[in-house]
């Protein structure tokens, strides 16, 4: 209901975006110069998972579809890299990205075609079921996937070897890889921002708000949902591609349902009714998880409890709550 108060929105969203995004991007770019390589590594993980969150939220926040199976696309991206590294001996990060995107596009196109015939819970469980199929395949076809041991992925070459980090060891790799991720992250944010502010994005939001009326505007609802699903899957797949070289290993765990749950969680944590929600959620989540896992073995309970509490008392997430707070402290001038 907070969203319905009818506060006027600023005239030029482009300007507002630049005003917020540029300082933050500069800040992010400076991080490796003052943070140690472990914190840089965590932030890189955070940015990667934020890309997955952005993709996920195109479905949840903008299209009104709650997927419990986004691990499938993340895993597809990750395994695509692992197969290329192991079976084809490819080392180029750019080749990983291209093939990873293609493969996750194919998988999400097929899965999406099945899932968008349904909405609400049917959609949710279908996505869950399909991701479980991939998970069980990854476990059982061990001669291809390495089973529960997973597949190792060596450090790739960046920009066709133009960025060399050999000799610099792990810290050097991290700082280069961090910038690599940051650039892609910025591109992803800009592209997603464009998508949600495009006529297509508005159509998705219309479908979310009122499916029947959208159909009576002549919008082909199912097709729009399918394209949204595809984009969402590709984003999450890219996150998987970027994640593997950092982790050095991919296991079926990233295809398993709790991983989908983490994507759901971080989006809700940040706030799924905001564009920036999943970004903030992804970064906060990564740090939260790292420190929580270090202190307790029962990370999932914490996740579940926080999720329930979020839904019951803070349904707009961190960004939503901040926006409300700011709105209360500095009421916007009506223009």
């Amino acid at each position, binding site marked *: 209901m907070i969203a319905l108060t009818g506060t006027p929105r600023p005239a030029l969203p482009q300007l507002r975006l630049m005003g917020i995004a540029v300082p933050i991007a500069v800040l992010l770019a400076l991080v490796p110069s003052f943070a140690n390589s472990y914190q840089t590594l965590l932030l890189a993980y955070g940015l990667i998972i934020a890309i997955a969150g952005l993709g996920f939220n195109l479905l949840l926040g903008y299209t009104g579809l709650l997927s419990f199976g986004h691990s499938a696309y993340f895993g597809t991206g990750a395994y695509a890299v692992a197969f290329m590294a192991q079976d084809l001996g490819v080392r180029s990060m750019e080749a990983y990205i291209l093939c990873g995107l293609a493969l996750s596009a194919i998988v999400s196109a097929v899965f999406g075609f099945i899932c968008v015939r349904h909405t609400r819970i049917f959609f949710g469980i279908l996505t869950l079921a399909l991701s479980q199929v991939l998970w069980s395949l990854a476990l059982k076809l061990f001669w291809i996937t390495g089973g529960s041991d997973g597949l190792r992925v060596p450090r790739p070459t960046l920009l066709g070897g133009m960025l060399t980090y050999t000799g610099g060891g792990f810290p050097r790799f991290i700082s280069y890889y961090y910038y690599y991720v940051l650039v892609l992250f910025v591109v992803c944010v800009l592209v997603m921002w464009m998508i949600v502010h495009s006529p297509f994005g508005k159509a998705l939001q219309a479908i979310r708000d009122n499916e029947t009326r959208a159909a009576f505007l002549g919008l082909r609802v199912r097709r729009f949902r399918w394209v949204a699903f595809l984009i969402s899957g590709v984003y999450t797949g890219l996150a998987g591609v970027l994640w593997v070289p950092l982790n050095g290993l991919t296991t079926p765990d990233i295809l398993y349902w709790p991983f989908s749950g983490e994507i759901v969680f971080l989006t809700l944590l940040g706030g799924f009714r905001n564009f920036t929600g999943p970004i903030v959620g992804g970064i906060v989540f990564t740090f939260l998880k790292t420190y929580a896992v270090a202190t307790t073995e029962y990370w999932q309970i914490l*996740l579940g409890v926080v999720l329930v509490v979020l839904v019951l008392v803070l349904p707009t997430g961190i960004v939503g709550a901040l926006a409300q707070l700011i709105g209360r402290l500095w009421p916007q001038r009506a223009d």
Partner: protein
Amino acid sequence: MEILAIQILNSLFYASVLFLIAAGLSLIFGVMNIVNLAHGSLYALGAYITAWLIGRAIAGGSGASAIWLFLLMPIGALAVALVGAVIEPTLLRPLYRRAEEYQLLVTFGLLLILEDVMRFVWGGLPLTADTVVDALPIVRILGQLYPAYNLVVIGIGGIAALGLWAFVYRTRFGVMLRATSQDRRMASALGLDVGRVYILAFAIGCFMAGLGGAIVVPSQAAVLGMGVDALVLAFVVVVVGGLGSLKGALVGALIVSFVRTAGIQFFPEVELAVLYLIAGIVLLVRPTGLFGTA
């Protein structure tokens, strides 16, 4: 021929368990319009509690007789029902007026919590109650050896289906349950305390899931992850049969069990995929399932 008979019995055994889970899921959906994502975990909880109780009973000495062990099963199911009776008013009730996403998210949070609680309490090791199976004889069916316990489970499945049908269609509470599911507002305007019906319906649904877990655990160990597998399978069942329909849950459970048995026989690597394929085809052809309405 003999193999076929055994396979049919195996399918029926499996159908009994699946029916219990799916019928609970369907009942809760039919009455309160909520799909409980933690339903599979409640089934797992029933399995763990029952296995644990039986384990304690045996550890407590007394050459345990099978009959005595059978009495522990409903206790496992009742404990799960109790959990349900706590969950509904505290976690779900505040959400009936909110968007559906939130209901799904809360039951999903519950799923995460329950899975870890079970890991916390019982650790990562499988927990069995196979003494119950051992206490019953092995029977000969067309020359093949077959555990009598499985026949008992098939019997329980049949009785549960009949009992649930009688409960919903032949009792006063069943009338109120159906009235609530058809028109909650009108039911309350006629003097029905819908809140109480909700708690009871949810608890009964949980009881069914818990009972499913309780009867499966003597022949299959309770393990982590069984809950989500069960949730997804139960969902396949209700998708095939139609969400909210008791008949659908029964027919769906039978179809899924037979397909799964055949799948294990012929495509052992991808039996799950075969099941989802079936569900997918049914959804493409008949989006509301075989007996679904809305």
